[in-house]
């Protein structure tokens, strides 16, 4: 098999007093079977060819866990106990919502209703649903530019997100943020960031707030956790490492979720990363690192339960690497020519929604009709969201200067001695500032 690393020894996680990580029994990458001297030059590396050699991989959902996160032997027979019918329907509905919404986004984009950079989440729904459906309203979620579905899963109404994408005042950010900046104070969605890595410190800050409330402000029941979502490309960024350090150092209630979809626009993860196993970077900083199959919502949910539980108990952060895949290009402007069709087909077979549907029907948790009804309901919801967004007004001129400052005195004092924001033209948006 072709190897991702050349001439490197297998990384053993550092033996740390707090967490001990088990090395994978079935290594994803075998360094001794390298046929490439320089990784960067190999553009034919395909993840599925790596996996075929490690036979144990597909059966075990969790490849590498720490002692704290117990490994669950997941096979079909034990999965029956994983979710109840209600939970299953909730997960199904959330994933269908995410998928239908993103598909509608693509339609609307090509019809000229939204512009700019739009990054769709098709194929990765299991990660968002698996984690966010375990959270409370007060818990925070921080994302990247691929944030529509995170916002939807957290509870932001579809009509608010669609309006925001259309750039209307009724959008969740009044039309001022756009696709890459979804925020919701009510649902504690902290964004929506255009630069990768930028949101991780913000998530760390939210986790710091939670700890501060508990220990300094003495709000004893404050156990809010923060989940930070980001991609494989981000895991090579300095802010990622700096935040792993601080979160582990101060035992912040945060979960770092790497949505490893193997591609950062056109850069294969294997070409960009010296050690592609991102979960290993957790133990290096003193926190558990977990790898999970991100195309299976139930497995993600199991890992998420452990990680969220850890954070709530004050035991500190966890790094979870979800192996997932985006069915569409990086953005709607991406021609997506670099990815091997075989790879895409491989992952299309593991569509999380189809998988959950199959699981639920096979285990008699729901009938086809019930699931169809959910799909219909979601379709109607999305249609309604589009209608709402279409009917909503565009922002007026007067909105231009609002929200620049929380305290508009920040615009300063004009030559006439009055604060600029007192100028009536200010609210009209025509004032000179």
């Amino acid at each position: 098999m072709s190897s991702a690393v050349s001439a490197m020894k297998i990384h053993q996680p550092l033996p740390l007093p707090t967490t001990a990580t088990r090395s994978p029994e079935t290594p994803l990458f075998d360094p001794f079977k390298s046929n490439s001297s320089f990784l960067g030059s190999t553009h034919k590396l395909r993840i599925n060819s790596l996996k075929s050699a490690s036979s144990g991989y597909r059966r075990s959902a969790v490849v590498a866990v720490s002692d704290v996160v117990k490994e669950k032997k997941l096979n079909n027979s034990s999965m029956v106990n994983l979710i109840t019918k209600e939970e299953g329907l909730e997960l199904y509905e959330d994933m269908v919502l995410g998928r239908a919404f993103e598909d509608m986004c693509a339609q609307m984009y090509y019809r000229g209703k939204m512009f700019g950079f739009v990054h769709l989440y098709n194929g990765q729904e299991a990660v968002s649903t698996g984690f966010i459906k375990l959270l409370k309203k007060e818990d925070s979620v921080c994302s990247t530019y691929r944030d529509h579905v995170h916002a939807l899963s957290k509870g932001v109404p579809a009509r608010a997100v669609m309006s925001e994408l259309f750039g209307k005042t009724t959008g969740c950010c009044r039309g001022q943020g756009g696709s890459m900046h979804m925020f919701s104070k009510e649902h504690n969605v902290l964004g929506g960031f255009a630069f990768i890595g930028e949101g991780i410190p913000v998530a760390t800050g939210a986790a710091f707030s939670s700890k501060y409330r508990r220990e300094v402000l003495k709000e004893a029941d404050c156990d809010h956790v923060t989940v930070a979502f980001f991609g494989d490309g981000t895991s090579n960024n300095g802010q990622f490492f700096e935040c792993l350090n601080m979160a582990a150092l101060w035992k912040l209630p945060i979960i770092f979720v790497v949505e490893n979809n193997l591609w950062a626009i056109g850069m294969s993860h294997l070409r960009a990363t010296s050690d592609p196993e991102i979960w290993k970077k957790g133990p290096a900083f003193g926190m558990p690192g977990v790898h999970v199959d991100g195309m299976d919502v139930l497995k993600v949910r199991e890992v998420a339960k452990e990680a969220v539980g850890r954070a709530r108990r004050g035991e500190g952060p966890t790094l979870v690497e979800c192996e997932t895949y985006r069915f569409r290009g990086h953005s709607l402007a991406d021609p997506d020519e670099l990815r091997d069709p075989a790879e895409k087909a491989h992952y299309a077979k593991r569509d999380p929604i189809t998988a959950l549907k199959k699981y639920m029907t096979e285990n008699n948790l729901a009938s086809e009709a019930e699931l169809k009804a959910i799909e219909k309901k979601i379709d109607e919801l999305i249609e309604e969201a589009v209608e709402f967004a279409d009917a909503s007004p565009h922002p007026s001129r007067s909105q231009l200067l609002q929200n620049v400052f929380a305290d508009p005195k920040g615009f300063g004092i004009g030559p006439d001695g009055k604060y600029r924001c007192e100028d009536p033209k200010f609210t009209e948006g025509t004032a000179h500032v």
Partner: protein
Amino acid sequence: MVAIIQGIGAATALSSSSSFDSKGFQLSTVKYFPERKATSFVVRSDGRLIPGSNLKARNVSGRLVTNAVAAKADTSATSTASKPGHELLLFEALREGLEEEMDRDPRVCVIGEDVGHYGGSYKVTKDLAPKYGDLRVLDTPIAENSFTGMAVGAAMTGLRPIVEGMNMGFLLLAYNQISNNCGMLHYTSGGQFTIPVVIRGPGGVGRQLGAEHSQRLESYFQSIPGIQMVACSTPYNAKGLMKAAIRSENPVILFEHVLLYNLKERIPDEEYVLSLEEAEMVRPGEHITILTYSRMRYHVMQAAKTLVNKGYDPEVIDIRSLKPFDLYTIGNSIKKTHRVLIVEECMRTGGIGASLTAAINENFHDYLDAPVMCLSSQDVPTPYAGTLEEWTVVQPAQIVTAVEQLCQ
């Protein structure tokens, strides 16, 4: 260097009332926002006090220093107020302001390198960690971008953090977070999240600290929308601006100067908060308006001594608010003197002076009798050698020459 301005000395403009009337413009009533609390007083640069301000045992107007020429600190003790106040150094004033705000609001916390156990590399946070705990005065690892971002995230979720850059120059590493998140998140979230952070630290050219420790970041940050920038120069305004910045809902960058931390001044015992958007009248005059801030204020006042001896009467304004500019105070002055000299420590290119020149030309062109002159530091990385370093920043002699040239 000595503190020139004492307590209420900022209100000296009232004395030269004739100059206000002569041009015929009126001081329009300034409306204030209802949420401004009257628990402390705020002094405007024209000497007026906010209605409802706390005037307990002082009769301010009768105690103004009418001619705040460069003077030693010991002779100025009489001018501060009926109460003697207390004397302290600038870094202690900053600490006092910080401590008062931390006492007042438990959500105020400090984040930075060596702010806790070490007490701050310039001792601004000395003894605060033992008092408030290690979480409220947080010693961070050396990761400016991330801990600044962490402060932004904490601010979004309800805390009021103060980020200390050990040296302002280090905050270049945090530029991503300051520009994208600090400045913009309130807007891109449609007003949902406020970011009440204060980012502060010492900058400016010190004594042979080398190029990278002698940076003036005010010019780099000034274009960022959504932030305010202020520069303190005396213990009095340091404390007042620190408190104002902490109380502000906007992200504020407070620029301190490495060489000004040991300035001594007598400041009032009562609580006071200064306005973040206003400039400070240091010395009223007739012939020329000199606009300055931070350390250059002292070079200007030194030059003013020489100028006064030569028969000139410069009006010196410490602009304090680097973004936004207080065009009212500045404008009134220009309308009186018709000549402007800007003295700053920023680089020549794209500095605060450059922006200020543009703003003045745009707004007050008709009132100028001469082109606006701007004295800035040379566009060079600050050299280590003492002689070279001296020549990179503006010295009093150059200021005198410039004034003489402008006033011909």
